[in-house]
């Protein structure tokens, strides 16, 4: 299918720092056309919802700013940056010691490097972001810096493109909470690149909160040098259409990666998580748990690729996909995808699909707890393993310790 007629030509002329990237993205979009369900990674996608993105206007410097007034307070010491596709997120901000802006040749050199290493530079959602992003937040992290909270807002039926690049230098440590929030049938196209230098450490939380009618396309590309530690905790709920694609590559092995995810869908929402982990050197580790809760008529998709080529001897990877169906009409598609060529490795994977356990419900009810409260307690217990890992008290501050699940508050 071709791109909606005229959409590409109506975009503002390529300009600014990202001009070459915009040209590249637009050319790719016109050549690739629109994704098709014949492509494996889009096979289960409701493409009509993707098409609907092209009805939205794209946020730019002239757009009304989304309201950042009602955000929860940020912990002391933490740096909050708000990105809404219009104003410069660094305007009026004094960056703390250790965090500096990447500009000029340095930026051009780093831009897209991690996307290429993660082999996702030509993916359709990435090219879409290339084509429409007009600004980039690019930061260099040195040493041990204060926690950073990146809040990305979308509202008023706008498509908000955001692009972030983080260069985390050798031995640096970063605690990062990204909050992607949308309301008013808006959409996000988000692209993040993180490069972790040797012995660096990034504890990354991504909290993606829609209100049921919004759309999210988020691509996270992470490149790890040896002896680095990267942890991603993603929590999503409330997206009519969502696609989250974290891709991590350990370029020399000997690094550790942990990926924990929770996606909650209700009503007729569709949310897909496509993770890809690639070990390009020996002795890397991965600890991955992806959980879903699907209520009502919603559809949750998980695709977890792990690639262990020949140089990645003594890799130790585990992946577990746990899926909870709260309704007979909800649907879950979970697919592990392990490509293992190295022969001296330990890779385990598992997938479970279940409903709330009758015995657990009865146990709680036999202690005076109503059916609905018992179900909510069980759901909260199920989510806790992931929610508690969000950095910067993300769960307590942004969710108030509760998730809305199919009309129940856990």
């Amino acid at each position, binding site marked *: 299918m071709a791109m909606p007629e005229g959409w590409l030509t109506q975009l503002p002329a390529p300009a600014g720092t990202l001009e070459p990237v915009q040209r590249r993205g637009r050319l790719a979009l016109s050549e690739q056309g629109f994704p098709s369900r014949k492509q494996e990674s889009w096979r289960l996608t409701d493409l009509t919802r993707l098409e609907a993105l092209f009805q939205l206007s794209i946020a730019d410097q002239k757009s009304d700013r989304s309201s950042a007034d009602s955000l929860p307070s940020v912990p002391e010491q933490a740096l909050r940056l708000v990105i809404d596709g219009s104003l410069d997120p660094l305007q009026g901000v004094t960056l703390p010691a250790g965090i500096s802006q990447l500009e000029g040749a340095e930026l051009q050199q780093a831009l897209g490097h991690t996307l290429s290493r993660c082999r996702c530079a030509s993916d359709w959602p990435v090219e879409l972001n290339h084509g429409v992003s007009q600004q980039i937040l690019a930061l260099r992290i040195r040493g041990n810096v204060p926690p950073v909270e990146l809040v990305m807002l979308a509202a008023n039926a706008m498509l908000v493109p955001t692009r972030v690049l983080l260069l985390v230098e050798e031995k640096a440590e970063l605690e990062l909470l990204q909050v992607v929030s949308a309301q008013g049938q808006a959409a996000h196209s988000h692209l993040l690149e993180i490069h972790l230098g040797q012995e660096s450490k990034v504890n990354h939380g991504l909290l993606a909160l829609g209100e049921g009618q919004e759309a999210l396309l988020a691509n996270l590309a992470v490149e790890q040098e040896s002896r680095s530690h990267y942890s991603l905790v993603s929590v999503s709920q409330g997206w009519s259409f969502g696609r989250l694609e974290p891709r991590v590559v350990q370029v020399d092995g000997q690094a550790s990666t942990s990926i924990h995810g929770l996606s909650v869908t209700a009503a007729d929402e569709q949310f897909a998580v496509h993770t890809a982990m690639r070990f390009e050197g020996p002795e890397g580790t991965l600890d991955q748990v992806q959980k879903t809760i699907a209520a009502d008529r919603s559809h949750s998709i998980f695709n977890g690729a792990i690639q262990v080529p020949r140089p990645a001897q003594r890799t130790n990877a585990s992946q577990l996909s746990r899926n909870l169906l709260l309704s007979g009409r909800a649907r879950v598609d979970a697919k592990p995808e392990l490509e293992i060529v190295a022969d001296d490795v330990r890779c385990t994977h598992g997938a479970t699909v279940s409903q709330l*356990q*009758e*015995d*657990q419900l*009865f*146990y*709680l*009810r*036999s*202690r*005076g*707890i*109503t*059916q609905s*409260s*018992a179900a909510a*307690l*069980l759901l*909260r*217990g*199920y*989510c*806790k*393993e992931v929610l508690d890992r969000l950095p910067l008290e993300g769960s307590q501050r942004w969710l108030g310790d509760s998730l809305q699940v199919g009309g129940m508050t856990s």
Partner: protein
Amino acid sequence: MIRPDAELLLEINDLHASVEDKPILNGVNLQVKAGEIHAVMGRNGSGKSTLSKVLAGHPAYRVTSGSVRYLGRDLLELEPEERSRLGVFLGFQYPIEIPGVSNLEFLRVSTNARREKQGKEEFDTFDFDDHVRNRLQVVQMDPAFLERSVNEGFSGGEKKRNEILQMALLDPVVAILDETDSGLDIDALRIVAGGVNELASPDNCTLLITHYQRLLDEITPDYVHVMGAGRILRTGGSELALELEKIGYDWVDQQLAAEGVA
């Protein structure tokens, strides 16, 4: 403690029940008065555990006929949570693990549900903390277990102590303990039995479901009932349990054969 004038708390009449359309209970009759401790014994498959689950309202068990009156009301029409709030307690043979749900929070929510029904003030987090720590001594339980997920990673003995702790907190009128002695070593058995004895009062009653005399060495029942083929075949005093220890259950087969049941 048998008192002829004591209040009738639980009255089971000709109770029949099935699970997955398979009849398990075939006419259970039992009356339990305030202050009494009843032991229900019998072989595996005799219907003891089913009786306990039916009384607690497990949705997998269907009552096909008969009645159960509790404090003068129809117990069977009540939801499991309502039964608990009104003072019916089931100590599980296999307490369920609930990952991610804090034991302390679970205990507080259930205790408050019961207290509300009793017309007592609900505990806030701090008051409950004091209260539960006080009740821990009933089963000599380590406070560290309050901070863990419900029963998760507890040993068999710890799970049973947690059950009796719940009993201590919920202050039941009818306590049904389903094989509380299984999986306990001698010391744990004494502690758990001590807790049950401490909680027994002239105002409540206890139904002990057990296979073994060893629990009854610690808790002296007023009545011992022997179940077979889904009903009570014989009732006696505490001496009946001692007799069973000697003669076993072969007579059950003979009795049922004589009745044409087995």
